[in-house]
């Protein structure tokens, strides 16, 4: 119990003194995660919508696999990406290992199935509603997908935010591919793992509270900017 109070006070101290190192790892956390969410959404949202409007033979299996991939173990993804980008791996010549770029790649792999799967669920319901209308207007498949994405944007925002939630708190994959290098690839979650290893629970918890707080602030900001979930509106 005492540790939690010390954690809270550590968090306050770090924020009030505007700790330079904290600012650096926080910015890197958001840089990596937001890039991954942007790329993951660009891939996952259209794919989810495409799955909803198309009927093909392996559709059921594709959806089952996609849903299963939502639970991809990050540490396995990390190891897989490490082997690909290691100097002795197929993409080793790029020299990307232990850089933020490869951390983004690992996170894209982790969150894209999640974003696509939630997008698919949301679009499927919308498609049931729009089906007759869009067919009678003689729209192309591309137009249908674009209409569904635009009209379902609120639900798709939830898909992107779920991806953000999974990526910002992720530590297993980025620890392996990023290496938790001070001033290069250290982010909030890997710093928390490091401080826990040192037995400095107060600082680790403090960083944890900051991480949670920032995630709440970002989610709120998105809802306010996109004018969703406000009173007097359904």
């Amino acid at each position, binding site marked *: 119990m005492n540790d939690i109070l010390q954690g809270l006070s550590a968090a306050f101290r770090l924020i009030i003194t505007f700790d330079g190192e904290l600012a650096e790892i926080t910015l890197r956390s958001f840089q990596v995660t937001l890039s991954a969410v942007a790329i993951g959404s660009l891939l996952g949202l259209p794919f989810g919508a495409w799955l909803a409007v198309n009927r093909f033979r392996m559709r059921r299996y594709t959806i089952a696999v996609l849903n299963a991939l939502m639970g991809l173990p990050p540490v396995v993804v990390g190891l897989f990406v490490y082997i690909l980008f*290691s*100097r002795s*791996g197929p993409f*080793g010549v790029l020299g990307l290992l232990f850089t933020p770029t490869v951390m983004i790649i690992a996170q894209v792999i982790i969150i894209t199935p999640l974003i696509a799967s939630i997008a698919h669920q949301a679009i499927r319901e919308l498609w049931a509603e729009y089906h007759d209308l869009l067919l009678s207007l003689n729209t192309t498949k591309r137009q249908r997908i674009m209409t569904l994405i635009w009209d379902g944007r609120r639900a798709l925002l939830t898909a992107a935010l779920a991806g953000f939630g999974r990526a910002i708190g992720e530590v297993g994959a980025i620890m392996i591919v990023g290496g938790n290098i001070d001033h290069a690839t250290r982010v909030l979650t890997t710093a928390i793992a*490091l401080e*826990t*290893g040192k037995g400095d629970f107060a600082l680790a918890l403090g960083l944890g509270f900051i991480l949670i707080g920032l995630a709440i602030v970002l989610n709120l900001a998105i809802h306010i900017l996109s004018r969703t979930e406000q009173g007097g509106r359904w």
Partner: protein
Amino acid sequence: MRFSKIALATAFVMSASIAIAEEIKVAVTTSFHNSGLSDILLPAIAEDIGLDVQLLVVGTGQALRLGEAGDVDAILVHSRKAEDAFLEAGYGTHRREIMYNDFVLIGPNDDPAKIGSAENAASALTLISYAETPFVSRGDDSGTHKKERALWASAGLDDSTFESWYRSVGAGMGATLNTASGMNAYVMSDRASWLNFGNKGDLALLFSGDPVLFNQYAIIPVNPKLHTHVKNDLANALEEWLVSDRARVLIDGYTINGETLFTHNAVAE
């Protein structure tokens, strides 16, 4: 006096020949990093030879793998057998001893197995195995874990036959100490990690000082013949700095709570 002038001059020449903020990646063990010594050495290295040393803090096993794959420019580890095998396979150019610290046995303050008065490390471990009090092992094939297994073997015991009092957690030094603290169990740690550890709880240092517990650290630059991209010249510059008198003063002078942690024992060529 004359020597320090020469050292200064060399340092100056080296800093002139190496552009500021060149990066080098070095895989080091958790026990080295947890000691806090890197926070002293890295700024000094940056200042003296303009080298930005990026540390990958991993277990010895993973450090060796990173070196084999050419993902780092040098490794700084402490497991003689594994290092020799690494060199024999041609992954490294050579091995240079830098410094040593020592392992200590930690346990509950009231010491139920009475290892505090043991004659040597082997008999201390034997006492723990007789008492069957909980013992937490790293279990991650790290340098520390290999050392621990060698010590059990030297006491004539086989750690794979132990009952449930022997708890192999498969984690780094810090996490293992956290587990031991939670279970109030015995554990073997390097002295540096123990002194810097913040969650001691009811644990205390019970046994140390047996020469077999000494722990030699060495640097091995990764072989540029296998991996042409590795920065071998920078790795050699780092090695030269680590064996220099400046490093000796910093390493020998590093203390926690007044206790010296590392002893510099590199030999100048």
